[in-house]
C-alpha cells in the first residue's frame, strides 16, 4: 500500500516538469480529433477553428517581421493577397490555367516572398512610424491593383469557381479537409519559426529590434537580416493566402482590406509580441471569440472592443509574454552530454 502511494507520487513528481508539454499535447490531440468527434454544430466549429488556424499561420508570419525583428508592418495583407491571387489565377477559369495546388503553393510562397523583398528594399532605412506608414500604403496599393487591374484580376467581380486541391485522388473540398490541411501547415510553420527563433538568425533579429546600430556593430548585416525577415514573413503570408483561396473557392479584392492586417497585428499584440505560443492564443481569442460572442448579436463588436481595451490595460505584455530562453544552464546540460573539446590555448 505504502509502496503504491510512493509509486504514484513518484509518477506525479516525474510528470511535473513535463506538465506544460502534456497540456500542450492534450490540446493538440483534441484539436486534431475535433472534426471526428461527435458534438452539436460540429461543422460550424470546424470552420471557426480552421479559420483561426489560418490566422495562426498569418500571425506566425507577421510575428517574424514585427515580433522578432521589430519592423512595424501594417500592410501584411498584401502578401496574403498575392498568395491568394496566385492561386486564383493559376487554378481557375479566368485564364483557363489549371495547375496542381501542390505546385501553386511553392509558387505563391515564392512570389509573396519576392514582394516582401521588393517592399523591404526601399524601406530599409526607415524606422518605426515611417515604416508603418509606407507598409500601410503598400497594403492598399495591392488591394487597389486587385480592384483595378481588371484584365488580370477580374476587378471587383473577383475570381470564382476555383479548382479544388486533390490529394492522392481525393478532392479536398469539405471544411474537415481544409481543417486538416491548415492543421498540418500550422505545425510546419510552427516548426520553422521555432527553429529560426532559437538560432543565430533569431538572435540577430531580436538584436535589431533592441538596438539596430549596436546590432550592426556586433557584426550583424542588418540590411540582409531585415530583408530576410520581410521575405520569410511574406512567404508565410503568401502560403496562408493560397490556402484561403483554395478553401473559399473564390476571392474578391474586398477580402484583402486593411482590417486583415490590423487583425493579424492585434492578435500578435494580444498574445504577446514576439511570443510564438502567444500567436496561437491570440488567434483563438481574436478570431474564435467574436463567434462565441454571437449571442450578444448587435453588441458583439462593442463587447469585443471593450475586452481588447481591458486586456491591454490589465496585461499590456500580452497573454503569454515572450520569455527569453534560459541558455546558461542549458549550455551546462548540453556540454555535459556532448563534452565539447576545449581547445587548449584558446582565448578567454
Amino acid at each position, binding site marked *: 500500500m505504502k509502496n503504491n502511494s510512493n509509486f504514484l507520487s513518484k509518477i506525479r513528481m516525474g510528470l511535473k516538469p513535463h506538465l506544460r508539454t502534456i497540456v500542450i499535447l492534450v490540446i493538440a490531440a483534441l484539436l486534431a480529433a475535433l472534426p471526428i468527434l461527435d458534438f452539436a454544430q460540429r461543422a460550424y466549429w470546424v470552420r471557426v477553428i480552421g479559420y483561426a488556424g489560418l490566422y495562426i499561420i498569418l500571425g506566425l508570419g507577421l510575428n517574424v517581421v514585427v515580433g522578432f525583428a521589430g519592423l512595424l508592418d501594417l500592410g501584411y495583407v498584401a502578401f496574403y493577397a498575392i498568395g491568394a491571387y496566385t492561386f486564383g489565377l493559376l487554378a481557375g477559369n479566368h485564364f483557363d490555367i489549371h495547375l496542381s495546388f501542390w505546385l501553386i503553393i511553392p509558387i505563391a510562397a515564392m512570389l509573396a516572398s519576392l514582394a516582401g523583398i521588393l517592399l523591404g528594399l526601399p524601406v530599409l532605412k526607415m524606422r518605426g512610424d515611417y515604416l508603418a506608414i509606407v507598409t500601410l500604403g503598400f497594403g492598399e496599393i495591392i488591394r487597389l491593383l486587385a480592384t483595378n487591374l481588371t484584365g488580370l484580376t477580374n476587378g471587383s467581380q473577383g475570381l470564382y469557381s476555383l479548382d479544388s486541391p486533390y490529394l492522392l485522388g481525393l478532392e479536398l473540398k469539405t471544411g474537415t479537409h481544409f481543417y486538416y490541411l491548415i492543421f498540418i501547415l500550422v505545425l510546419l510553420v510552427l516548426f520553422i519559426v521555432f527553429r529560426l527563433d532559437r*538560432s543565430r538568425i533569431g538572435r*540577430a533579429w531580436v538584436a535589431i529590434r533592441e538596438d539596430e546600430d549596436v546590432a550592426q556593430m556586433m557584426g550583424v*548585416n542588418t540590411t540582409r537580416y531585415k530583408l530576410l525577415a520581410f521575405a520569410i514573413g511574406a512567404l508565410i503570408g503568401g502560403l496562408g493566402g493560397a490556402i484561403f483561396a483554395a478553401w473559399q473557392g473564390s476571392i474578391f479584392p474586398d477580402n484583402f482590406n486593411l482590417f486583415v492586417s490590423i487583425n493579424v497585428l492585434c492578435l500578435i499584440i494580444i498574445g504577446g509580441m514576439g511570443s510564438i505560443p502567444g500567436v496561437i492564443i491570440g488567434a483563438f481569442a481574436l478570431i474564435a471569440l467574436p463567434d462565441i460572442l454571437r449571442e450578444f448579436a448587435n453588441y458583439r463588436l462593442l463587447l469585443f472592443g471593450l475586452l481588447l481595451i481591458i486586456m491591454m490595460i490589465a496585461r499590456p505584455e500580452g497573454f503569454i509574454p515572450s520569455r527569453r530562453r534560459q541558455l546558461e544552464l542549458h*549550455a551546462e546540460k548540453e556540454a555535459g552530454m556532448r563534452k565539447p573539446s576545449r581547445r587548449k590555448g584558446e582565448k*578567454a
Partner: protein
Amino acid sequence: MNILEARAVTKRFGGLLAVSKFDIIVQERSISSVIGPNGAGKTTFFNCVTGFYKPEEGDILFLEQTICGMSSDRITSRGISRTYQNIRLFANMTAMENILVGQHARLQTNLLDVLIHTPRFIKEEASSREEAKRLLNYVGLEGRGDTLARNLPYGDQRRLEIARALASKPRLILLDEPTAGMNPRETTETMALIRRLRDDLDITILLIEHDMRVVMGISDVISVMDFGQKIAEGAPKEIQQNPQVIEAYLGRGMAAGIDH
C-alpha cells in the same frame, strides 16, 4: 606594428567641425587613451573608426588597410569591437544571448542549417554557448547568464558590454568611458580587467576616459583632443606637464594633484 592609423580625419555636422584633421597611431598591444573636455569630438572619432559615421576627409587604416566608409558589421569582422559611453546592451535579451549576438560575425550557419539542424548547426550552437559561458566567467559574471541584461546591476552591465565586445574575438577594442559611474573599487577592478585584456588576450585597447587616475594609471600613450583637434600626445608624465593640456582640460590643481 601599427594596428590603427587615422590620417587627417575630419567629420562635420552641418557647420560644426566635430573632428578636425585628427591623426593618431595606435601601436599593437598598447593601451592608448583619448582624453579631452566634453564635446571635444572623442566619441565622434570612435564612431568614425567603427563605421557608424563616414568622415568627410581623411583615411582610417586598420592593419594597414583602409576601413574608411565600410559598414560597421564589416569592420567588426575585420577585428574591431567597442563598448558605449551610455551602456547599450540588448536590454531584453539575456546576458548569454548578448554575448551570442556578439559572436555573430564569427558564426557560419545559414538558413538551411538552422531549419534542418545540420550537424554543423548543432556543433556550432554548442561551442558558441560554451565560449559565451567562458566569456561570462572571464569578466566575473558567472551564473548571471540567464538574467535579462536590463536586470543586471550597473557594474555588471558594464562588464557584460566588455564580454560582448570580446565575443567577436577582436584585435582592437574601443572602450568609451569604461569606468563612468563606477565606485573606486569597481574602477580598480575594471583597470585590472583592461590590463588583462592586453596581457592575456593580446588585444590592443583604445579608450576614452575622464577619470585621470585610470588614464594616467594604465595608458602607454595619451592623445588630447580639444575642439576636434589633437592638441597634445605623449606618455602620461609628459601630458601632465603639458601647459596647453593643463590650460584646456586638466586644470592646474589636477595636474599638481596627480604628481603627489
